[in-house]
């Protein structure tokens, strides 16, 4: 399927959250792999664990979370068990993170140009191998800032570098955050619901930008969203999460054409689209289970119309019904 080297490999990742003084499993045996130039979509509803999965990569889990097992490798290097200092180096060079709300990730009292220049102050090697004077460095940093703002299709970048974040619209702020992430030429870009706070016409511009960057700089992308449309437009492969587990993993086309897991199927049918005309969408009965009190067996079984005897007893192990596809459902383990 993809013979390019793996950028990120997550295997058997278990994460627990401390909720009212009790450690509760929040991620159960998560497996993922992203190859160079690939875009992997991670989709799920709130509480499914998609953001926790993403945050465990650069070691940015919240204080009430802990990794209890598994492995996370970036370019073949194990990340779990690294010291804070080593992780800092990793965060500054290998992984770029872009979140939902750009305002919180920009410094309000520095101009965009100053903020980008700061990155070069920390890592002057990004400006090139040659040794140079302070002044030379500053001039080059300013030039680079404009260059990267142009890469993310910012109109009039010479003006933007002199502006403060509050002078920019949400879409423009998100572009500058993306530019700041790319300055470090990271191996992996993690985009967590980056267009959720934007209007649809601006979202379309940002999505078009991501598609363009994948072509122009061979960007490797972990794309987290709850929007099936965004996944279909940008992702090569998709992992569907439900209550802390990946319940189906497939290439995007197969998932949309023939979803195998009943939840993946139901999720696709529950979303009204502009194209589905007057056809009635089908709601999924019930609600998402609380991780503090999950149902036994398969966590989806109380809402599943295909549930049968083993579903309420044993957790389904992931099976491979076909090449490049993983499904965690008893319907398929019974058949194999």
């Amino acid at each position, binding site marked *: 399927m993809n013979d390019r080297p793996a950028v990120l490999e997550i295997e058997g990742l278990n994460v627990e959250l401390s909720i009212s003084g009790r450690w509760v499993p929040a991620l159960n045996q998560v497996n993922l792999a992203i190859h160079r130039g690939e875009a992997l979509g991670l989709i799920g*509803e*709130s509480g499914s664990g998609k953001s926790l999965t993403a945050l465990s990569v650069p070691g940015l889990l919240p204080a009430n979370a802990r990794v209890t097992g598994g492995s996370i490798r970036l370019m073949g290097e194990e990340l779990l068990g690294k010291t804070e200092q080593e992780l800092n180096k990793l965060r500054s060079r290998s992984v770029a993170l872009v979140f939902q709300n750009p305002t919180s990730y920009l410094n309000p009292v520095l101009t965009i140009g100053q903020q980008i220049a700061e990155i070069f102050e920390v890592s002057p090697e990004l400006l090139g191998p040659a040794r140079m004077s302070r002044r030379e460095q500053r001039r080059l940093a300013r030039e680079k800032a404009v260059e990267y703002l142009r890469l993310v299709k910012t*109109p009039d970048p010479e003006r933007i570098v002199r502006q403060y974040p509050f002078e920019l*619209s*949400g*879409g*423009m702020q998100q572009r500058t955050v993306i530019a700041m992430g790319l300055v470090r030429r990271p191996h992996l870009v993690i985009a967590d619901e980056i267009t959720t706070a934007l*209007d*649809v*016409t*601006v*979202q*379309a*511009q940002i*999505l*078009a930008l991501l*598609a363009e960057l994948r072509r122009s700089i061979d960007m490797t992308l972990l794309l987290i969203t*709850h*929007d*099936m*449309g*965004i*996944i*279909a*437009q940008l992702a090569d492969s998709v992992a569907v999460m439900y209550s802390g587990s990946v319940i189906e993993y497939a290439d*995007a*086309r197969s998932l*949309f054409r023939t979803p195998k897991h009943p939840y993946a199927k*139901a*999720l*696709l049918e*529950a*979303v*009204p*689209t*502009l*194209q589905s005309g*007057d056809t*009635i*969408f*089908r*709601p*999924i*009965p019930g*609600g*998402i289970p609380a991780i503090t009190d999950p149902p036994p067996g398969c966590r989806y079984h109380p809402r599943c119309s295909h549930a049968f005897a083993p579903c309420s007893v044993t957790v389904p192990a992931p099976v491979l019904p076909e090449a490049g596809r993983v499904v965690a459902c008893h319907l398929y383990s019974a058949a194999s």
Partner: protein
Amino acid sequence: MTRAPILQVRGLSKRFPIRSSWLERKPAFVKAVDGVDFQIDAGETFGLVGESGCGKTTVATLLVKLLEPSGGEIRFAGQDTARLNAAAIREFRKQVQIVFQDPYGSLDPRQTMLSALIEPLFVLGIAGSRAQAIEHARRAFEMVGLDAELLRRLPHELSGGQRQRVVIARALAVGPRLIILDEPTSSVDVSVQAQILTLLEELKRRQRLTYLLISHNLAVVRHMSNTVAVMYLGRIVEQAESATLFSAPLHPYTAALISAIPIPDPDAPRLTALAQGDVSSPVNTPSGCRYHPRCPYAQDVCRHDDPLLRELQPGHRVACHFPAVAAGR
């Protein structure tokens, strides 16, 4: 279908003054709603779409008299809502209800569901006794598919979907004819969204309701509405029957909105960002057509002349100098 308007809105506008420094002589205003006309027929679902800041929520708050308009007229069942006396206002509130986006923000965190539901019944003089009010509340809970057991709970003890059902039940309990739904599903997950939408459709049929559905989610509006109006910077720029609007939009902004929705199909054509840049400021609205700075088809006339909303085909109104160009036909 006989057209019996339940709500008529003419020239509606709302300006909010913005604090300007003492150096500036001229007071500045945000023109949140700037001359809006539409009517809603009894029994239909009227969809109002637009991006953030276009004025759709201000329209909703004006309609339910939570704000006073700066200009224009709102008629409900033929009556001018600006000229209602105290008794008539109470009657109006029984007939027109609103459901807001965030059910957590519309429920008192220390009030049980029961007391949240019966309070309006006493205020509006619908229930005479507590027993009667409780009976009303139970029935409303049943209508929205909630267990009466939950009436004793506090908001934080319910899920997001349940809370949204509670605020719908509270609106229903007073027996309204028109319900304004302001982003009714944008705070719930997609699997729950479908449940709420199906519930709303069922309630509309059973209770013979009329809806004004406000949303930025075009797919939701497309599925729920008979008629849809698109707002941009305080104005309606296009209005048509739902199927027509989405299959043959005439305004370039409508076309841009529709083409901006990512299609959940990996083989569908890739997105095209038709609208350039960002929404202009509602304080210094652009000259001429308000959409011209973002419009790829803008001509000279668009920069100078403000296009009027005119009916091009029966039931299809558009405010654009070059509607056919925009439609790509």
